[in-house]
């Protein structure tokens, strides 16, 4: 059963980040992709004096990453994958790039959250390249995360500025990974993507019926 919240607007990015944070099981090892997904860290439950509820991985070689660093806490040797200065939590560990990506590719991360240009009905992900002539491609660790984490969540707006759905029957942008996305979290709805089809778990500012009109993918409720 889809939980519809049609009597309000779509989620702001921070609200969406909070929704994703709520769905990450406590005790998980999580990689938050660069850009929007880094906001999720601000919404994870506070650890108080105990161990952090979720342990963050950053592919440039760290488990136990803490919040962004500010002022005197900034250390140029300690950044996240987006090259933003961060901090270290108790129980952190550093490792080199081959070990870090072995961790990702070996299926040890519970969840990663990535941005996307498009997600297809079977969970294909396109998030690294627009394919436009003249665009300089950059892939970073996206393809490794896409095939490595047990659950790959996508965080994106559902529609392009032109109003086209980014949840599509088939991706038209170059792929990052095949059949890898299990959840698409968008400002208008959360989509659960399984081999049996796509189900809408929750909506904001739109009804399931309206979604079915605007998203070119069969949607279960």
């Amino acid at each position, binding site marked *: 059963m889809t939980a519809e919240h049609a009597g309000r607007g779509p989620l702001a990015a921070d609200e969406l980040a909070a929704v994703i944070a709520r769905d990450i*099981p406590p*005790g*998980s*090892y999580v990689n938050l992709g660069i850009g929007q997904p880094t906001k999720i860290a601000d919404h994870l439950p506070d650890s108080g004096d105990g*161990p952090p509820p979720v*342990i963050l*991985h950053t592919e440039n070689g760290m*488990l*136990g990453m803490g919040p962004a660093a500010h002022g005197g806490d900034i250390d140029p040797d300690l950044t996240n994958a987006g090259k933003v200065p961060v901090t*270290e939590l*108790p*129980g*952190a*560990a*550093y*490792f080199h790039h081959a070990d870090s*990506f*072995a*961790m990702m*590719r*070996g*299926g*040890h*991360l*519970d969840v990663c959250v990535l941005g996307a240009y498009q997600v297809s009905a079977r969970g294909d992900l396109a998030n690294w390249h627009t394919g436009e002539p003249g665009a300089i491609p950059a892939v970073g660790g996206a393809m490794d995360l896409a*095939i*490595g984490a047990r659950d790959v969540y996508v965080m994106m707006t559902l529609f392009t500025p032109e109003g086209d759905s980014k949840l599509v029957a088939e991706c038209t942008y170059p792929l990052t990974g095949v059949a890898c996305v299990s959840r698409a979290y968008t400002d208008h709805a959360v989509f659960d993507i399984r081999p049996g089809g796509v189900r809408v778990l929750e909506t904001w500012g739109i009804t399931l019926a309206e979604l079915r009109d605007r998203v070119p993918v069969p949607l279960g409720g």
Partner: protein
Amino acid sequence: MGRARVMGSVDEAVAGIEDGSTVLVGGFGLAGMPFGLVDGLIRQGAKDLTIVSNNAGNGDVGLAALLAAGQVRKVICSFPRQADSYVFDELYRAGKVELELVPQGNLAERMRAAGAGIGAFYCPTAVGTPLAEGKETREIDGRAYVLEYPIKAEYALVSAHRADTLGNLVYRKTARNFGPVMAAAARTTIVQVAEVVPAGALDPEAVVTPSIYVDRIVVAR
């Protein structure tokens, strides 16, 4: 796999190991051999095990005792024959235990591949020897290689020196040996340590096995 748990006893730590499991057992000779966990496995009684370890037991203790208890169907190791490997020798000669002999570096690298998500790799070791017979070979850049596959396992039993409460591990000297590789290769990694310390008590630069690879921790000898 989520967060590591500190268990109250060895018996709790080894609970649930199923008959027919593949179990990686750390150690090189006596150094790094998880005697407490192996004794626990004998009490636990799981049968038809495939044991992956460098050796096949010394004297009457550890793996030798597990073999003597009739719990082992197959041993995958590099160096079964030693001055005091009489338990294995007798079972092997009586046809009561199967042996897969693997060069030591292949043993390590095949487990590393399992942990790192590598599907198979071309390896220079054993080319032209009986241990490469029947295996796929390929010449790359003028050199001959043998194709080797990962060794995956349901469980790893590892001995480390200290764990923190999150499951980060450090080892002592050459007792480190197979521990870090096995911890990453198994679905469930069970670690005996001399001491559990609070998160933050281990130097993050010196953590050898990050907590993500550890499922259960117990203090044991």
